[in-house]
Every structure is written in structure tokens, then in C-alpha cells.
């Protein structure tokens, strides 16, 4: 008898404790009230389309074809030269690609849905994982959009730090593009070289942000931490070494007949095709159109820096390779100016609503502790409205569209990834070219699948 009362008391306690559980495990779709119901109301055809059972797959061979040489081949998703988990359905005639359809979604992790559940303070943690080769750009575009919604302007030092870090990130991202592009074509030393030089920059990032990738460094209101002691000498070393090494790449590849033979007049994209398929960034500039958001729609004070936008007219794979090398030089110019003009002052906005108190204050002040706790648990409220901000990432226009409903979490967070859009041009540049050239063409577009699938 005594036992029983004890048990029921405990049961009561534990039921309170596990409020979300039901009798048989967990009700996973408890908030999913409409999606299944909606299907029942639709007509049969729409149900088929909506559930995906009516797959419109036109990617089959024509039945009356007598050509033995034609076949459908799957390239990827696990293929080293598709740069991640990109799958290509290709119709081959012998060794020539006649038709190709990119199939994506193998790395889809629902980051836009996650973005709706994280507050603005946690948002960069999520967006930084999208384009994993240029994480700082993702953080920057999220922060800029949030700041536009609130209507604040960050201090000069924060702006300069942002420019310094993102341009270094552009260099490291382009170095990976050169390295993996070289690897796909067979220039394996290029792969080693590119990753070796990138290591310099990643070491600097690690020193500054604590992490080599996925930094969560640029946040709404400024940056997470000031630059470390002695950062000047690290940046100077980068500025000294990378141009030397780039000269080595040129010595190795620029006049190399094999390299030029493999890349020239391959995978040509014209300016009109770039416009039609929304291709931006280095690929557009390699097609003879000078368009750089850093010049035309400047952000974070980049209009105060002196740099050129390299443009090439050929539009082939060689031009897309070359333009990345030239852009590294321009980015290093910006880094050098940021190094020399780094202003003094705060690296975060001095707005108590947005900036948490410094760590030291928490130890001595109860109010600072409360303040810190409030910002980290609730976040800060952002006024109602929506904003679209675009910046120039290493792959093109990186946009972020946030709808705010006045709470501390975005009502809708959408990221316009440049790789997603650039990938649509893949059928254009791959059609009617041999498979070996197609591999070079994929590498030249430099898609990052994390950015494509989000």
C-alpha cells in the first residue's frame, strides 16, 4: 500500500516533467495540422503531383532510336569531380554529352526552416553552414539584412574588420576553386598548392574567430570579437606569400600547352546566357560583362577602397579560371588597404538592446548578467517588415531575404545562393561536349553543394 502511493506520486511528478510525450512515444507531427488534410481536399491529379507520385521524368531515351551508342549515365552523387553530392543525369552518345539534367537535393538539410526557429542572434550560426567555402559572406549577408531591418549602422572598425575578413575569405575560396579545378583536369600539383596557401588564411581565421570554418564571427551589430594581438604581422605574411605563390601557379599553368589545350574554347557561356540563367560573379565577368556588386551596389563601406574589377571576354573555362587568379590580386589589394586604414574604436555597435555586455562585466555586475541572459535566451526584437540585401560572394550574388513579424525570430528567412542559380547554366555549357570537358566545365562554375541545397 505504501509502495503504491509513492509510485503514483512519482508518476505525477514525471508526467509534469515530460509534458510533450504521449502514451506511445512522441507525436512528431503535432504541429503539422494542415499539410496532410490539405491533400485530401485536392483533386486526384493534384494529390499525385503534390505527393510526387506523378513524377514528370522526361529523362528517358526515345524509343525509336536505333543508335547503340546512346545511353543514359548517372554521374554522381558520389563522384569526386562533381564537387560534393551533385548528381548529373547525362545522355551520352559515345563520349559526347547530348543532354544533361542536374539533380540536386542530396545535401538538403532544411536550413531555411531552421532559420525560422533561431533568433537573430543565433542566425549566423545557421547561415554560415550554407556555403561552407565562404562562410563569412553568409554571415555578413544575414547580418546586413538584419541591420537593415532594425535600421542600424555598425561602427567603422566593425565595417573594416568585415571587409578584411570577407576579402581574405574570397581569396581562400578562390584558392579552393583553383585547387579542385586543377585536380579535376589532372593538374594535381595545383591541388596541393591551392590547399597549402589556403591553410595560411585558415590559420589566421582560426586565430581570429576560433574556428577554421563555420566561424559565426560576423553577427548583427558588428563582429563577435576584436582582431587578435599581432594580427597585422599575420596579414602582412599572407599579403607577402600569396602573390609569390600565385606567380608560381602562373609559371606552371599560364603558358602550359596542356592546360591551355584542355581549357580554351571549352564550355563557353555568352553574356546573354549568363543573364538568362541568372549567372553572376566571376562567371559573368569572364563572359565579358563588368558587373560586381562591390562596385555597383556597395556594402559595408567597400566603396572607399581602391580596386579594379577584372573582366575577360572569352567566356570559356580558361577565362573563368584566369579571372579567379586576377580577383585574388584585387582582393589582396583591398586587404592591404584595410590593414593600413584599420580605424580604432568599438567593434560592436554600442546599443544595449543588441550587444551583449562584455564578458568581464558579467563577473562584477548582476545587471550585466541579467542583460547577458536576456539577450542570449530571448534575443532582440526586430521591427516588422521585409528586406532583401545582396552582396558579392566569391560565386556571385548572395542575397538574403528576411521577413520579420516583430518578434525575435525571422518569420521567413530565405537565402539566394549563387551556386543554386549558376547550376542552371550547367546544361548549356555541358551539352555537346565530351565528358572530360564537362568535368572541367563543372569545376569552372565552382558550385558549392551546401549553398545549392541549403
Amino acid at each position, binding site marked *: 500500500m505504501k509502495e503504491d502511493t509513492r509510485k503514483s506520486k512519482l508518476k505525477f511528478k514525471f508526467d509534469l516533467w515530460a509534458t510533450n510525450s504521449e502514451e506511445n512515444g512522441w507525436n512528431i507531427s503535432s504541429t503539422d495540422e494542415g*499539410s496532410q488534410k490539405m*491533400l485530401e481536399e485536392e483533386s486526384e491529379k493534384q494529390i499525385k503531383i503534390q505527393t510526387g507520385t506523378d513524377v514528370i521524368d522526361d529523362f528517358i531515351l526515345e524509343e525509336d532510336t536505333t543508335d547503340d551508342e546512346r545511353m543514359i549515365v548517372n554521374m554522381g552523387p558520389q563522384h569526386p569531380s562533381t564537387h560534393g553530392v551533385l548528381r548529373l543525369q547525362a545522355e551520352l552518345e559515345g563520349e559526347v554529352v547530348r543532354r544533361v539534367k542536374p539533380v540536386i537535393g542530396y545535401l538538403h538539410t532544411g536550413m531555411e526552416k531552421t532559420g525560422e526557429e533561431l533568433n537573430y542572434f543565433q542566425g549566423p550560426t545557421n547561415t554560415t553552414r550554407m556555403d561552407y567555402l565562404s562562410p563569412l559572406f553568409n554571415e555578413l549577408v544575414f547580418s546586413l539584412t538584419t541591420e537593415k531591418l532594425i535600421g542600424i549602422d555598425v561602427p567603422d572598425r566593425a565595417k573594416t574588420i568585415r571587409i578584411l575578413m570577407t576579402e581574405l575569405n574570397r581569396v581562400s575560396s578562390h584558392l579552393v576553386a583553383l585547387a579542385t579545378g586543377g585536380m579535376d583536369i589532372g593538374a594535381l600539383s595545383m591541388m596541393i598548392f591551392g590547399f597549402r596557401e589556403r591553410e595560411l588564411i585558415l590559420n589566421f581565421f582560426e586565430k581570429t574567430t576560433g574556428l577554421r570554418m563555420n566561424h559565426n564571427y560576423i553577427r548583427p551589430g558588428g563582429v563577435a570579437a576584436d582582431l587578435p594581438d599581432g594580427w597585422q604581422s599575420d596579414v602582412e605574411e599572407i599579403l607577402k606569400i600569396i602573390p609569390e605563390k600565385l606567380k608560381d601557379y602562373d609559371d606552371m599553368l599560364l603558358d602550359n600547352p596542356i592546360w591551355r589545350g584542355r581549357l580554351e574554347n571549352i564550355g563557353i557561356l555568352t553574356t546573354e546566357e549568363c543573364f538568362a540563367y541568372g549567372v553572376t560573379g566571376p562567371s559573368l565577368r569572364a563572359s565579358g560583362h563588368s558587373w560586381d556588386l562591390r562596385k555597383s551596389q556597395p556594402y559595408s563601406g567597400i566603396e572607399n577602397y581602391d580596386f579594379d574589377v577584372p573582366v575577360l571576354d572569352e567566356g570559356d573555362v580558361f577565362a573563368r579560371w584566369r579571372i579567379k587568379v586576377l580577383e585574388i590580386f584585387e582582393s589582396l589589394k583591398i586587404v592591404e588597404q584595410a590593414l593600413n586604414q584599420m580605424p580604432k574604436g568599438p567593434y560592436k555597435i554600442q546599443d544595449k538592446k543588441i550587444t551583449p555586455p562584455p564578458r568581464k562585466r558579467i563577473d562584477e555586475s548582476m545587471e550585466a548578467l541579467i542583460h547577458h541572459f536576456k539577450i542570449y535566451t530571448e534575443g532582440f526584437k526586430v521591427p516588422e517588415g521585409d528586406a532583401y540585401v545582396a552582396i558579392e560572394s566569391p560565386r556571385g550574388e548572395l542575397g538574403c531575404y528576411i521577413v520579420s513579424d516583430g518578434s525575435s525570430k525571422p518569420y521567413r528567412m530565405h537565402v539566394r545562393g549563387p551556386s543554386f542559380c549558376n547550376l542552371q547554366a550547367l546544361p548549356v555549357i555541358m551539352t555537346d561536349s565530351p565528358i572530360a570537358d564537362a568535368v572541367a566545365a563543372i569545376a569552372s562554375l565552382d558550385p558549392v553543394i551546401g549553398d545549392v541545397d541549403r
Partner: protein
Amino acid sequence: MNSEILRTNVESYKKLVELLKSEGFEMMVDLTVVDWFRKKEPRFEVIVQFLSVSSNERKTIKVFVNDDDLTIPSISDIYPSANFYEREAFDMFGIIFTDHPDLTRILMPDDWQGHPLRKNYGSGRIPVQFKNAPRVDQ
């Protein structure tokens, strides 16, 4: 840079896009959907961003989709770059773009049910071990 916002309805949406194309907006850079579940009527709002490279201008079209059929004309014949974006919008929100060349799921698996970015679609939970621990009375 601020972009001009144009509000329109489903019927005149495609004409407006054609007009923008003829005005020299070369690129459709982004197409996305906002689900105003229980906040606004009609429920889904399609938002399209246009960019003019020649005149350095941005324009945004916002159009509400009727709740009863969730249908809107596809603009992928005017701007081929809309192809993937419309497939994504269909996949994530279930908006049907008429005359789209290949309106299939793009990010989710082909046999997936439901549209994940709708507000009434649960984000799902995975039971955590200590919460699912055997009950005391068992």
C-alpha cells in the same frame, strides 16, 4: 540598395514580368514564397526579385496566390533562371506554376509528402534519450 516594390495580382503578374523584361531588367535573381498562415488572407505570397544590370536597379514583385487553387503562371519562359526557383517554391510550399517545363520536387525526395516550409508543417522532433527513459511505474 532599396528596390522598388510592385504589388500585383495573379492575372496581371505575367504581363508585368514581360513589361519588366522589356524595360531592361535582364535578370530574375530570386523567387521565393512567404506563408502567411493565419496572419493574412490569401495565405501565400510570391516574391520575385529582378535586377537590371544596365541601369543598376532592383525591382520586387509581390503577388498573393489564391487559396483555392494555389496556381500562378510560370515565368520560366521569359526568364529561364526561374526554373529552379519555381521548382523550389513548388517543393517547399506547394505552389503550382502552370506551364512550367518540369514541375517536380527539387530538394526533397520525389516521394515526399507535404511541403516543409509551410508554417503548419512541423519541424519534427527526435526523442532525446533521457526524456524517453522508462517510466517509474513500469
